[in-house]
């Protein structure tokens, strides 16, 4: 596949790097998770979507 075609793909080609596995279980952005959980708790999910 040529570079231009690669750039137009929506799903990227991802190289698996096993050394990143150890990071996957760590929370790297704890403040963001806290905010997301807070929004989940107070706002929840979009109502019209859940109703479908």
């Amino acid at each position: 596949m040529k570079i231009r075609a690669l750039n137009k793909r929506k799903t990227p080609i991802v190289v698996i790097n096993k050394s990143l596995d150890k990071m996957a279980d760590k929370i790297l952005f704890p403040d963001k998770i806290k905010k997301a959980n807070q929004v989940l708790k107070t706002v929840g999910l979009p109502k019209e979507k859940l109703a479908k």
Partner: protein
Amino acid sequence: MNHDKYQLEADRKLLIFEFTSIGSKGRVKKIVQYSETNLKEFFNLGFGDKDDKTGEINDAVITNNGDSQKVLATVASTVYAFTDKYPNAWIYIQGSTKVRTRLYRMGITNNLQEIRKDFNLYGLKEDKWVEFRLNTEYQAFLIQRKK
């Protein structure tokens, strides 16, 4: 999102993505992390710079590497890779600052047609999820891949 993108590396679960921004300030490692929250299949998208020497992650730094379009396009492409593997996932996106959240909104706005083909997209406004509309400020964004 037909912009140029950086080559991505990821862990085997496709929860961590890493790429290197190359620009006027040199090479800067970037990390994208999808972390599950208290609700199953509801993930937070975290994005920041990784200091290769200390391993520390900073999501507040402004890199100014002159490649913000390419960086945003690369982060957006991780959403496709992630939702290919986790098609039911909800992804919560909020910048570390208001300015960064606005930058994400600009990125969404510039690619809205394309995004709407593939995702349901919501904005958080006055503590309610509403359908994303142009020229509106939001506190955060929520997306889910269309079936």
